């Protein structure tokens, strides 16, 4: 029972800390909307064209926003010494890490989900497609957070690790990107998408179960620098 | 012999492929050998320095 209490208090604490840095919550949001709005400027306003590329753009923007938001996942804990305490605590590290990544997902990805309909409308997607888009993002963004957290845990002890983090993590984001954007594309043409959604859900389960082990091992390594 | 090098008109593609493969494989041998000499030299300096400070 005590572990569940620890899990919840770590989750609660991380969310409160994030809310005390309110402006940091908006960064991924602003980045997401900006990147999405750059494409029409670059490619041209023709609605039909925008409709076909909207799924890909939404997902690539969500992916980059997740990458950007992931960087401060463990960094502040590493600098103020709480990460050392977490690694040395008798509580199971992979569970505590899951709580931290979940808190990070709640704070960074959920606002993104709320903003997606607005951006999707600007790309001319109809209501059911936006519904599917939200569903794919709901299933996909936790995978992005968990996989991104592995990269962050590996590079937290390095000074300038932004580019390296992208190099480590973006190749691992490819499957989520493929199925996520394709699901929206298929939904736009009215076809059933439950195949893609099942696969996204399978990736989510895989990420939630395996990633914390890798993150815990990586944090133990980073802490011993 | 010329016909062999002509490769049925695909000479450019075939020989470039084999050439690049050869270059990459060669690099994978030459670089380690250079590093080997360099590591030995650094080891020699280290031990020589170590030898001198010990006396």
């Amino acid at each position, binding site marked *: 029972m005590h572990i569940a209490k620890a899990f919840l*208090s770590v989750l609660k604490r991380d969310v409160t800390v994030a809310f005390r840095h309110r402006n940091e919550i908006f960064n991924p949001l602003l980045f997401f909307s900006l990147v999405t709005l750059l494409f029409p400027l670059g490619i041209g306003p023709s609605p039909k064209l925008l409709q076909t590329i909207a799924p890909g753009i939404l997902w690539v923007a969500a992916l980059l926003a997740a990458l950007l938001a992931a960087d401060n996942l463990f960094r502040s804990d590493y600098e103020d*010494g709480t990460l050392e305490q977490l690694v040395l605590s008798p509580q199971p590290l992979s569970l505590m890490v899951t709580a931290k990544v979940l808190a990070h997902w709640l704070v960074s990805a959920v606002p993104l989900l709320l903003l997606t309909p607005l951006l999707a409308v600007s790309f001319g997607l109809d209501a059911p497609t936006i519904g599917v888009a939200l569903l794919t993002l709901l299933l996909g963004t936790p995978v992005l957070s968990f996989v991104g957290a592995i990269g962050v845990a590996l590079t937290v002890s390095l000074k300038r690790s932004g580019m390296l983090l992208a190099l480590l993590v973006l190749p691992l984001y490819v499957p989520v990107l493929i199925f996520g954007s394709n699901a929206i594309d298929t939904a736009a043409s009215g076809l059933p998408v439950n195949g893609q959604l099942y696969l996204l859900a399978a990736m989510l389960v895989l990420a939630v179960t395996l990633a914390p082990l890798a993150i815990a091992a990586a944090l133990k390594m980073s802490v011993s620098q | 012999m010329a016909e062999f090098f002509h490769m049925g008109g695909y000479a450019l593609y075939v020989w470039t492929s084999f050439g690049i493969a050869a270059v990459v494989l060669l690099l994978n041998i030459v670089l380690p050998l250079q590093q080997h000499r360099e590591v030995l030299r650094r080891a020699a300096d280290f031990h020589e320095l170590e030898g001198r400070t010990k006396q």
Partner: protein
Amino acid sequence: MRLDVVGLHCTRGYRSLFSELAFTLEAGQLLLVEGHNGSGKTTLLKTLAGLREPDAGQVLWEQQQPIVWLGHSNGIKDDLTALENLQMMQVMAGADSLLRRDAKSCISTLERMGLAGNGHRFPRHFSAGMKRRLALCRLLLSSACLWILDEPQAALDKAGIQLFEALLAEHLAQGGSAIMTSHHHVGLQGSHIQRLLLAA
């Protein structure tokens, strides 16, 4: 509670900090690790705490149990109030039922460490000494029997140092043991204190 260290060897880059280091720490004993800067004190403490792997040798425990670790960094979050930080320490200390796990014990810990009334303030506004005192609350909130402390008295004023030494003496008296480094003169005397000089 016995800690055996056998043939411990740690290096930094090509420089060997210490090798063939061996000692035993019994219950109720204090080990003072001394040495000038860069002699590997922190590396030794991190290795003993399990944060870092030695290049060779073993750190053998009678049985597995949690420790209290205090490094150079205080391990407290500036964005959590003092009480919230203490509550986190309690949770992280793990499932030992010896201590009451509630807010009252946190408040009494604050008072004991001379931080009474600061419960709802943020460590961001604390002085270095107050932050160190908050970090030292960790000692009271965990029932672990081994303390591994890296310069616990850093930034503490005279009263703070005396308070810490009283806590340490009490801990040793109750059969706990501790390993610490310190540049200040430790005011404790007695046969139960071992000194270890790292002369790298």
